[in-house]
């Protein structure tokens, strides 16, 4: 196994493009190192990107959005004074992952690249309209987060490509997002179902809505019809029921040790209602 610690993304991309066999990018390592220890993967090349300047920075972009370096950790997001005010759902989704120690290492970009259908931060990032900068031998391109996962453990990144930045759009007025997951315990667990909701209001009326489910299909599921069900209405009981039904209808889960098809489907509907209520109250100005 070869270990590299490049100082620039150019160098990192060249290493990735030139590497043979199994290559893994190492940021926090909370998935990669665990998988190596348990013999799930044995990389030939390990490229540690934490030393590249800027990878730990959270910066406000000119348009009022956010740019996160690829080694930004959950703890850095939670401790940031402003990021959580704009995107509480994204920050709380990331904050749900692992222990305090893991929070000091784990990154949302790593969570995305690991390709787990149960990744907590991914539905929240998709609901928020987050995008990543993908850099390869041919240059860089910006693509929505939802286009990265293609199946369990699989991403759309081509050979030689790595993610070099994460961006969140400007929050703007009267917006709110929320993420909830179901686990049988209170923490230190993996999502049986996850649900992110991102809303914008005009007064009490919903003008934009995005709902994304996790752990109920091979990849995070964008429930496009959520917008049709909610836009132009307040979040009344009928809207919540419609949203809950849509969530259940969008599920394509598996039966496994973490949950049954029936339970996951039912709980997706429950979380849709609950997350929507939180997002709605945040959009109306609630700070919690």
């Amino acid at each position, binding site marked *: 196994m070869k270990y590299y610690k490049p100082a620039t993304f150019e160098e990192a991309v060249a290493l990735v493009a030139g590497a043979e066999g199994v290559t893994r990018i190492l940021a926090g390592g909370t998935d990669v190192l665990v998988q190596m220890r348990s013999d799930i993967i044995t990389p030939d090349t390990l490229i540690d990107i934490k030393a590249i300047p800027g990878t730990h920075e959270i910066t406000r972009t000119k348009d009022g959005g956010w740019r996160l370096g690829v080694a930004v950790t959950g703890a850095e997001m939670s401790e940031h004074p402003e990021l959580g005010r704009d995107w509480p759902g994204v920050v709380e989704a990331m904050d749900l992952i692992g222990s305090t120690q893991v929070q000091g290492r784990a990154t949302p970009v790593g969570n995305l690249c690991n390709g787990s259908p149960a990744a907590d931060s991914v539905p929240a990032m998709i609901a928020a309209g987050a995008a990543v900068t993908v850099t390869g031998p041919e240059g860089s391109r910006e693509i929505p987060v939802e286009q990265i996962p293609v199946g369990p453990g699989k991403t759309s990144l081509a050979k030689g490509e790595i993610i070099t930045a994460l961006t969140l759009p400007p929050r703007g007025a009267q917006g709110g997002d929320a993420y909830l997951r179901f686990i*049988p315990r209170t923490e*230190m667990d*993996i999502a049986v179902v996850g649900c992110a909701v991102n809303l914008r209001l005009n007064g009490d009326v919903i003008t934009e809505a995005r709902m994304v489910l996790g752990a109920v299909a091979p990849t995070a599921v964008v429930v496009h019809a959520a917008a049709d069900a909610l836009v132009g209405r307040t979040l009344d009981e009928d809207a919540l029921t419609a949203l809950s039904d849509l969530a259940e209808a969008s599920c394509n889960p598996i039966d496994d*040790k973490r949950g049954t098809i029936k*339970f996951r489907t*039912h*709980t997706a509907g*429950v979380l849709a209602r609950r997350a929507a209520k939180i997002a709605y109250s945040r959009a109306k100005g609630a700070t919690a």
Partner: protein
Amino acid sequence: MALDSSKTTGFKYVGTRPNRPDGLDKVTGRAKFGADAYAPGMLHAAIKRSPHAHARIIKIDTSKALAMEGVKAVVTRADFATGLEGEFGDILENVMAGEKALYDGHAVAAVAATSALIARDAIKAIEVDYEILPHVTDVDAAMQAGAPVIRAGAADASVPEGLHPNVVRYYESGHGDVEAGFAEADLVVEDHFVTEATHQGYIEPHACLGTLGSDGKGELWCCTQGHWYVQKVCAACLGLETSQLRVTASEIGGGFGGKTTVFIEPVALALSRKANRPVKLVMTRSEVFRASGPTSSTSMDVKIGMKKDGTITAAQGTFRLQGGAFPGAPCEMTAMCAFAPYDLKHVHQVGYDVMSNRPKQAAYRAPGSPMAAFAVESVIDELCGQLGLDPIDTRLKNASREGTRASFGPTWPRIGLVETLEAVKAHPHYVAPLKKGQGRGISCGFWFNHGGETAVSLALSEDGSAQVAVGTPDIGGSRASMALMAAEVLGIPYEDIRVTIADTATLGYNEISHGSRVTYASGLATIKAAEDAVQKLCGRAAAKWGIPEDAVYWEDGYAKPSGPNAGDFEPLHIDEITATMGATGGPICGHFEATPEGAGVSFAAHIVDAEVDPDTGKTSVVRYTVVQDAGKAIHPTYVEGQFQGGAAQGIGWALNEEYIYGADGRLQNAGFLDYRIPVASDLPMIDTVIVEVPNPGHPFGVRGVGETSICPPLAAIANAVSNAVGVRMRQLPMRPSRVLEALESAADG
């Protein structure tokens, strides 16, 4: 005349709460646990394990592993003793498979290499040819005609004819005529209950460092609850003379029964003998789950008849325990504990020990009892509910007390169940209002407690301080309790006593720290050893004063003349006697060796409030109170810790913990991510009430406390959840999906 310091009141040190002597070492990281040992030239070992639930081993090719640079030795079953039978034969078969791999994770070979990484790579290079055989992991399926036979001829003489060969032991007891009893009842409830296998979940994986020379002399450092037992087992598995192997117990990061047996130590020693170097072997967490000793899973039927006034007229139980690929599931314990809290005219219980393709079960805190309580106390709760009776009054009405003939035969001596139930009734928790969506459950629990072979030695130093050597690894703060009991007898401060867990070369045989025996048996032996030393101290004083030995008595650290007739002498303090002991007869020591048989049984009753999320079926335990008879709490803080620990483990067992096997017979959740043990935020504060009904079998009245605390929780939590959702929960764990299904069935019904 032998000194007797027996008393149940008027203590100076016993009953206080000083800091534990091992506390500073543990909070600073200085304490040495199993994996903290190193030796010059040490090798690292790894174990090759079967991926199959049941397979014949055709061939093991170790040549590629042996050819790797850094690999110093490989062992298979051929490197261990032959001809072992019974208990040791089973342990060796479990430590290293012979002809067949009997479960997913069964060891088939091991490597020692110059680094842990090389050892890990080397076991991948070992090639094993298997002939895969049909397997069975479920207890009921394993008893069915046509189920794969795990090991032919494993059953003992207790098993009636006509049962499947996987049923290896049978137990039956009771008295009266249960059919006549059921006929007297106003209501009879009969139900079927199921529990899954759970793991003790100790935080420290098994670890050891072994050195064994070609001369048959060895040293072993390991994490265990009983190093004399490890010595005996390892000597047998390797064909050594027992005394030539010295075993030292490390500090222990939890055991709960799971470290009362042997999994890896003979492997490290066999590798060391072959490589002629010290060998360290540390299990990974995944190995701990796959190849140590979880508890039995169960399938149980319980039938109880009750009159309208709450009198139980008859009780009958059938308890089937799945114990893995070897005999030993504690079916008789389950059956004996089931109805122990009750005074029954007609009772009958049956237990089956059933083998399957799973790891050999090991003890887990009151082995077998929690499951029995789950089934029995659920049925009693159902009867009370249907008859509109108060659950505590009903239990009090039927409670076992002194003179009651126990459900499994003996007549109870002084026991504390009635006092325990009355303390529950008097507790504010029992009458506190419940919120919507919450339910309350209570349950009794019973455990035997144990004495066992025990040896303790106490030596006084010139400055009057004392060192106590005990042979029972400290798994619950027992060094503090020993020091308190020695302080009480010697009359010197707690801080002046150092208690050490001695190695096997230092003391006589000490049985394992199990059966909640340590504070009882090692405590009794410590008291007797201290009395022995006091006797000698009095003798020295008598000699100095020139009076008879029995004219001297001991009080508060002083030898005193027993009265005016004995003479008028200034009392002699212990340090005045020890300062000159070299010149007055030599070192002053006390010792005691015995197999104490007066361990007092103990009863507990728990009160649980559970809240169920009706949308998701998720249960939160919102309030918990443990009430238990401790006989006499030597160190009340550590007694309370045992009470809380049992409740915490019970919450995990009841709600989310379970061994999950796939159709392929492989364990699906060999790690703490998917084996859902509670985390701190899953638990409420756990209140405790210590009831003290002294045990006449111990000088200070001690009853074992460590195990009884896990007997009531499964039932108490199940009763709370059942009362919250309005449906009887008959299967553990009560994971959210299962509770949700119960809620749906209630809505449909």
